[in-house]
């Protein structure tokens, strides 16, 4: 009988060997397929039941947290106390629709799943502590509120960042959405909300500030100027563009007109201050040329996705081939036709000029802490691009100051603060509507700029009252003032208001550049009938560092 018993043993061993192989197949080799099976809710379930860290703003506001719930299909529900104020930044965290925004980019950190956190977690295994990461953002609630209030119920975006570090301070688009609507545990309710949000006008689920692109209009002249200065082909004194009403590019019979049919020309500072289309179109097409323009625009970040730590940033675009297409180049040089930019990109352009020619990587993360407040990870500022050398950037900065002190950007002035910027009024399609832009940066007089902003208000009527300077300028001013005030409040130093000197007065009539014709739209300026803008305010100082701006004789267009 022993022989049979031994054979039985071998048979049973083979049976168990088969089980061993099958187990390996199910748990190891075939596991991925099973885990990703559409009917498999386990993996997602476990993820959604894990403890998750909070998201806070730089000034301590609670933006997202997981609260315990009873009697529902999960233990925790993600709630967003600030509702739609930070909706597009935090994103949502939904069982059905996944995650976006910070919830997605920093998903591992929030769940405590990064290697570093797991490692740290081992030491705390027997302590009653949740191993999660708390994400602190660079954005400030007070500035986000300022942005929301400044823009009001108008479609548009506001980006405010610190050019020295790339920290994003305010990041707002209207309309926004409330992530609570999608993070509810009731899947029927979230489905209704999802459908409603997707159908809502203005596409609130999209974070327009960095995911949507628009014609930048004349704000792109900053890039054109920057490319020109960097290449050496443009200097403050040379070339001097002829006074003209329009510019006819090669290879076409359709000229590009100046805004409102006005005549303008001159050297760099003049043409930037009044936003002269004819001069810049000529600069891009003839002075700089296609190859250098393409390289230059790309050096400013066009055709690349900004390395922001949020999901799916859009790349702003600049055409890459102008063979036999110089008219397109002419229009692209003034930010129309085929140039598309996100509000973030234009803010980065301004930041680059402000930061001595270096564009820092934009980021929303400040640091990640564990549940005891110890810092686990900090975002160290890093350079992204360097489109200009420091001297070239300094020159451009002076030119942009001129835009605000005596040009189209006067509504963006802030008392006691050195502001530089550029306005833009991008004409859409049939000419009935425009996007109004303002990009600017500001800092203490004589010091380094501390904030760069980009504001776009969409779909404004095309008329003299609704230009970039008039619509977006005041918003930019509010943002810059709010940022600098907040900074001062934090550090306790008062704003320094240097003694006032009168700015050279500008006559009302000579200031106008009328409505543009053709596909190009110049930059609007305030109409003569409203002398309420700050440039008539005697308290507005000019800083003594503007020495290169030629003081225009009365009647010169600005």
């Amino acid at each position, binding site marked *: *009988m*022993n*022989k*049979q*018993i*031994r054979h*039985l*043993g071998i048979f*049973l*061993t083979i*049976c*168990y060997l*088969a*089980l*061993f192989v*099958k*187990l*390996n197949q*199910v*748990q*190891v080799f*075939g*596991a*991925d*397929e*099973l*885990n990703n*099976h559409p*009917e*498999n*809710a*386990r*993996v997602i*379930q*476990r993820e959604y*039941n894990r403890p998750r860290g909070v998201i806070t703003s730089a000034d301590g506001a609670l933006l997202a947290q997981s609260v315990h719930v009873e009697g529902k*299909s*999960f*233990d925790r529900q993600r709630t967003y106390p600030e509702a739609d104020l930070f909706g597009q930044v935090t994103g949502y965290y939904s069982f059905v629709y996944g995650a976006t925004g910070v919830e997605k980019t920093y998903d591992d950190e929030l769940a405590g799943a990064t290697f570093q956190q797991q490692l740290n977690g081992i030491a705390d295994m*027997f302590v*009653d502590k*949740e191993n999660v990461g708390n994400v602190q953002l660079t954005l400030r609630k007070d500035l986000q509120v300022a942005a929301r209030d400044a823009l009001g119920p108008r479609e548009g975006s506001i980006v405010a960042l610190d050019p020295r570090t790339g920290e994003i301070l305010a990041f707002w688009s209207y309309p926004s959405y409330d992530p609570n609507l999608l993070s509810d545990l009731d899947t029927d309710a979230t489905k209704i909300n999802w459908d409603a949000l997707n159908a809502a006008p203005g596409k609130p689920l999209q974070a327009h500030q960095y995911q949507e692109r628009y014609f930048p209009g004349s704000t792109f002249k900053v890039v054109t100027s920057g490319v020109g200065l960097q290449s050496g082909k443009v200097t403050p004194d040379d070339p001097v563009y002829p006074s003209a009403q329009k510019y006819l590019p090669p290879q076409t019979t359709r000229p590009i007109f100046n805004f409102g049919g006005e005549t303008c020309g001159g050297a760099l500072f003049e043409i930037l201050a009044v936003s002269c289309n004819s001069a810049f179109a000529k600069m891009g097409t003839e002075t700089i040329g296609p190859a250098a323009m393409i390289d230059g625009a790309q050096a400013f970040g066009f055709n690349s996705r900004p390395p922001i730590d949020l999901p799916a940033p859009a790349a702003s675009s600049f055409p890459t081939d102008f063979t036999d297409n110089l008219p397109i180049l002419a229009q692209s040089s003034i930010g129309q036709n085929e140039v598309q930019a996100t509000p973030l990109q234009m803010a980065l352009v301004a930041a680059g000029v402000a930061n001595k020619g270096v564009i820092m990587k934009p980021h929303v993360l400040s640091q990640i802490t564990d549940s005891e407040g110890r810092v686990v990870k900090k975002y160290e500022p890093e350079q992204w691009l360097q489109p200009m050398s420091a001297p070239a950037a300094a020159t451009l900065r002076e030119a942009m100051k001129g835009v605000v002190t005596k040009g189209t950007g006067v509504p963006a002035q802030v008392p006691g603060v050195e502001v530089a910027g550029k306005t833009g009024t991008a004409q859409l399609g049939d000419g009935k509507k425009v996007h109004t832009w303002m990009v600017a940066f500001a800092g203490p007089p004589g010091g380094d700029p501390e904030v760069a902003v980009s504001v776009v208000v969409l779909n404004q009527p095309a008329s003299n009252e609704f230009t970039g300077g008039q619509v977006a300028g005041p918003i930019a001013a509010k943002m810059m003032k709010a940022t600098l005030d907040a900074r001062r409040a934090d550090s306790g130093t008062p704003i320094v208001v240097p003694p006032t000197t009168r700015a050279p007065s500008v006559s009302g009539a000579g200031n106008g550049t009328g409505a543009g014709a053709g596909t190009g739209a110049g930059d609007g300026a305030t109409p003569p009938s409203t002398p309420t803008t700050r440039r008539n305010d005697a308290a507005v100082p000019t800083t003594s560092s503007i020495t290169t701006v030629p003081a225009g004789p009365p009647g010169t267009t600005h």
Partner: protein
Amino acid sequence: MAAPRRNTELGLLLLVVLITGGAYALAVLGKDSEIPANIGPFLGFVLGLLLVAHIVVRRLAPNADATLLPLAGLLNGLGYVVIARINERLAWQQAAWTAFGIALFCITLLVVKRARDLSNYRWTFALLGIILLLVPLAPGIGREYRSGSRIWVSFGSMSFQPGEFAKIALALFFASYLVEKRELLGMSSRRVGPVNLPDPKHMAPVLLAWATTLIVMFYEKDLGSALLFFALFIAMLWIATQRGTFLAVGVTLFAIGAYFAYKAFAHVQTRVAIWIDPWKDAKGDGYQIVEAAFAMASGGIGGTGLGLSGKIGIPEAESDFIFAIIAEELGLLGSLLVLVAFLLIVGAGLRIAVRSTHAFDKLLAAGLTTLLGIQAFIIIGGVTRLLPLTGVTLPFVSYGGSSLVANYVLLALLLRISDDSAVSSASSAARSGPRSKVPQPAGSSS
């Protein structure tokens, strides 16, 4: 000679207590994020039970194999920890049944002084076995199970499965009968086709008993037990007669039977359908298998961690599908641990069978080991989709008082046989005296 084995056993048991205690702590930690408050009493309880069993073995079967009890304890403890995580009320019951099982283990060791004494009661066991199988069919006290199988008996709030004990009774009957008749069965007196078959009159009783049990099991829709039983009978017949023919005939009969069962019974067809592709009816019939597969896959190699497998449960997680939960929470490492434990039990059991000196002991040990080994194989195979799913429990691990208690009785019998064979080989070594060059007369051998 007793001391080393029992000491080994004691050491292994202490290890088992530590592992179980650790697993329990981790499970509660995983589920409630805190060390369980009752870890002290719990460890005390486990240690107490196993120590009692150990002391009884030390006194009543001191030469028995040292690994069986610790292995059973490990499986029992692991199963208990998982059940506690799933459902606290059931855990209490399982703990009570464990205590009862250990008690019966001790009583069995006490009552059965020599295993082969049991062979005198063969017809009693046969009758007992069949009655136990038939009881669930009785109106009133029988209870139909959810899947349509009728194998339960309940008195008030208590319920148990007599079938689990029937298997042991019938194994005893088979062992006894086959040992006596094996010579006769081994001889061929007829030829049927290419096969030599023994005289039917010798085969008749055992065939009758076997056929009856199979019919009853089919009627009760307890296909897993039917399969198990069939395997038991064929294995014991083959071992007893040492004729491969029986093996071949048996397998053929099984194939034929399985085919007819498939054709005749709708629920067999369902089982086979969800074995081949459970995703066709993933929300309905296939739900258990599908969720088990997902659970095991999400466990991966290291497992999700005790207590951390999330809220999606598997129906019958505490009984038939407990293996899937272990595989999920402890990963491949955990599931292999269980597999290896059963393999070691099979190995120890068969080793006991080989070392036994009496034919009855050999056959019984082999049969009991086959019961344990094949049952574990059937259910693990069903859960992992190696085989179609059948409703048998995972011995020692699954929730289920009858199965647990019956298996402890089975264990006691194995240890009794082991002790017997160790004693008799020791005494035969003593009798044959010191070796000398002169060959001793034949009477010195056992």
